[in-house]
């Protein structure tokens, strides 16, 4: 085995990209603050600016492709269609255009822009967080903060089980097809194919838990000792802490300002 490969595990884990190397909890904190700030500011220019900012950050973090493969769906469905629906049906006084139940007004266009900017900004923050944070790093940080390792297991195992069951589902479907079950045709034929696939899938998965629990106990899953880690993450730098804290304070000030304005 290569000496460099082993040496890698003696150092804290870094990927070389300053955005991706931020501490997972800092990223979570930034996601919440930046993603929710448009709800406080309530200005669609700010909201769209945030959405644009997230796209730029994804490019800087080198994950634009995987980020945008999810984000374009939100942009199309909620950036475009939600705006149309809002613009056509929201109540308003100054009518621009009217046909049957559709009433496009100044107010409805602005309410459409507002809601679209909120949805885009929040979705952008959420997808960006997921795409820049590997789940094992996130659960590692949670455990460092004292969360039980059972939570880590549930989170990581869920993703693994989804892949496994997805493959199982394909195998079962092929077998049932070989047995003569129609998976194409009209809705009722396709609906009839659902049960013979999902039934064995669930029962198989459930009956495998017993073996799995024995296997995990044999590997000291529930041993009441302090855990060690193969991989460690660097401690957050002072600069990182200051940036996160600064943004947190700005967010709280904005929130207080919004509440004061709302009460007056």
């Amino acid at each position, binding site marked *: 085995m290569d000496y460099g490969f082993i040496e890698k595990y003696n150092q804290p884990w870094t990927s070389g990209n300053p955005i991706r190397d931020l501490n997972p909890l800092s990223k979570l904190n930034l996601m919440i603050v930046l993603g929710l700030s448009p709800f406080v500011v309530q200005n669609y220019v700010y909201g769209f600016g945030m959405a644009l900012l997230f796209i730029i950050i994804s490019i800087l973090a080198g994950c634009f492709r995987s980020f945008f493969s*999810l984000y374009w769906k*939100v942009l199309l*469905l*909620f950036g475009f*269609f*939600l705006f149309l*629906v*809002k613009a*056509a*049906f*929201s109540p308003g006084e100054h009518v621009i255009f009217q046909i*049957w*139940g*559709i009433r496009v007004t100044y107010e409805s266009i602005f309410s459409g822009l507002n*809601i679209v900017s909120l*949805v885009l900004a*929040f*979705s952008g923050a*959420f*997808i960006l967080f*997921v795409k820049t944070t590997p789940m094992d790093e996130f659960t590692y940080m949670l455990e460092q903060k004292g969360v*039980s390792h*059972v*939570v880590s*297991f*549930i*989170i990581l*195992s*869920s*993703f*693994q*089980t*989804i892949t*496994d*069951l*997805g493959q199982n*589902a394909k195998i079962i*479907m092929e077998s049932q097809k070989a047995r003569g079950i129609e998976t194409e045709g009209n*809705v009722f034929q*396709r*609906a009839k*194919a*659902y*049960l013979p*696939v*999902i*039934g064995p*899938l*669930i*029962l198989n*998965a*459930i*009956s495998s*838990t*017993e073996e*799995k*629990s024995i296997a*995990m*106990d044999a590997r000291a899953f*529930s041993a009441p000792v302090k855990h060690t880690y193969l991989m460690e993450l660097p401690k957050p730098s002072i600069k990182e802490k200051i940036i996160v804290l600064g943004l947190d304070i700005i967010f709280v000030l904005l929130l207080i300002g919004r509440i004061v304005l709302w009460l007056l």
Partner: protein
Amino acid sequence: MINSKNFTKLTIFLIPIGIAVNVVGGQLAVLLKLPVFLDAIGTFVVGALCGWAPGVIVGLGCGLINAISLPTLLPYTIIGMLFGVLGNFLAKKGMFSAFWKAIVNGLGVAFISTCMAVPITAILYGGFVGTGASVIVTTLMTAGWGVLPATFVSELSTELMDKIISMIVVFLVLKAIPARFVVKLPNGKYFLKEEK
């Protein structure tokens, strides 16, 4: 809340499976081009077998994972969590013991989830959910309906189909799980008949 002391080992291992069944069940419905979601089967199964807390965790996990591909689904996570509680409740009332009860469950659950989904859809997204149901909503609103009734009608029609099929699947799955396994689970007592 979660540690090995209050949850039995089997419950801990069933939670990821519940989440995965939700997600894969939904993917399967998409693959077969069915007009329903079928993405809460795992929540009901785990809620019924293991109690409300594991059911709620499955609903939460599934909601978060679904939100990764479409973050606008995040507000509906609360409904998924409620399904875990409902699964436990129905198991306690013995509502998974006969086929006709599955239909009744489906009607009840569909009505409850519609009542919770409508305010989210109507207020947050103006009746637009980004699925086929949006076509019904926009058609009704073009015909002069208000946002709330239009959303209610479209949600109820899809939810009814979705939840009745889901509950039938849940009923058949729960019936098929061997008794020697069920007896080890926290809610096992509600599914087994005592032999005298």
